[in-house]
């Protein structure tokens, strides 16, 4: 049995809704109830209007690859043995940009602006990590 040995999410009060939703295979992001700004990763106060009336909302989970890089050297436990591995900046259709990985495609075939959608990797019985895959896959 393959044990997942890459860094696991450190669940905090701030990010718990995201990781709990991931277990249900939903990708949730934050939205300001006052100005409507949406963002991810989480912050406790809106950085547009500074409101603290924040809600978690379902993302459609689709977007595109804003840029991507390929690590041939690794500094983090668990990642070394999977080099070369990719890290991508995902731009969700709702707007937020954040870092994630592209799966289901060779690194050499990834392209900037490629449409992607979220997929869910159940890495342990109680942890699910969202990643992204080409929309066409």
């Amino acid at each position, binding site marked *: 049995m393959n044990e997942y040995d*890459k*860094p*696991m*999410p*450190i669940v*905090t009060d*701030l*990010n718990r809704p995201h990781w709990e939703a991931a277990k249900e295979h939903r990708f949730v992001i934050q939205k300001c109830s006052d100005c409507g700004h949406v*963002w991810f*990763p*989480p*912050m406790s106060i809106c950085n547009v209007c500074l409101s603290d009336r924040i809600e978690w909302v379902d993302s459609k989970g689709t977007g595109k690859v*804003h*840029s*991507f*890089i*390929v*690590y*041939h*050297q*690794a*500094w*983090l436990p668990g*990642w070394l043995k999977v080099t*070369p*591995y990719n*890290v991508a*900046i995902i731009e969700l259709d709702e707007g937020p*940009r*954040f*870092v*994630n*990985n592209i799966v289901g495609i060779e690194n050499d075939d990834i*392209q*900037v*602006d490629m449409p992607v959608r979220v997929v869910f990797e159940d890495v342990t019985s109680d942890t699910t*990590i969202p990643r992204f895959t080409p929309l066409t896959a």
Partner: protein
Amino acid sequence: MALESVLGRVNIVGIGATRQGKLPEYSADDIAVLAFREALRDSGLQKSDIDGLLVQRSYGDAGDIKEIGHRLGLEPVVGDSVGHHGEAVHKAAMLVASGMCKYVAVVYGTNQRTNRNRFGRNVYHMGGNFDEVYGLSNPGATAAFNYRRRMADFGATEEQLGAIAVAQSKGASLNPLAVYRDALTIDEYMDQRYVIAPLRIVDFCMVSDGGFAMIFTSPERARDLPKPGPTIVGMGAQASFLELDHPRAMYHPSQLPNAKMLWDNTDVKHEDVDALYVQDAYTPNVFSALENYGFCEFGTAHEWAQGGRIELGGELPVNVHGGQNRFSYMVGWHNTYDAVTQLRNEAMERERQVPDANTIMVTVSTGHWQSTWSMIYRNER
């Protein structure tokens, strides 16, 4: 016009450097003190003349202003910590121009190579450990993302990126202070291993020990000193905190408004600039700077920089000291040091002097998505 109260009113009258590379016999604070001593000697001033001291902290809790101030035996009017070389130069200029201080020393020393202090892992604000979960580490990732995007947007190639490492390695091969002095060919560049593709090992800064210091005063007081030095005739500033949220996040966003402030407030024109120094923790930063500061059109720097154009003897020599991948990892301090050396016509050793250097531009920043400072230094005759 803005900045009239500062531009033309501040000179650099002393510069000091330690050896660079590995200095295991010294602490980081020792290195800072030694750099200050060299700058003081160079200026011809007495230690007691220094009434402003700005020190940049370095890795491993070194460079505390109270510690360095005590080690220097100073009792200045102003003694402050600064976060960056650019902040040090800008604040020194403002302290002198305002009249609050007469002679301001700015100092940096680090032994991060000996001490094995590495970069912080955080590449940008992610609120938790999302970076580790997704395998993101090393600030060089920002430049790799930038260059990948440039390749997609403008058809830039990895070989074109190599022009920077090649140019800087040539410069370093002539610089007696440089840590690595082997000149690379483009073929040798292409044979280097990837660290974070599309970037290769020589696209990354080294980690090194060393220190630099500079002393600033007014042009009037400078006239009485042995090396009255260049004058600050251009300054640009721009903080940037939006990171990935910035629409131009991939292209060093703080440089564009920084450049507008710089050029709007100086009589210097692009064609007057005899050499350019860019803080190049990662080589793609040079292309960003060439475009954002208007030396070429957006989306063309990877072509513009080919054919020796940015090398010593080229149209616009860039980072002729060798940059942070060849000279030393000195987070911008090496740029002002070498710019002043060139403007004094003191870089004669091994034919690395920029001919007739009269006006030099420096840009430094805290990171790809972060804050930027720029300066233009000119010999006022």
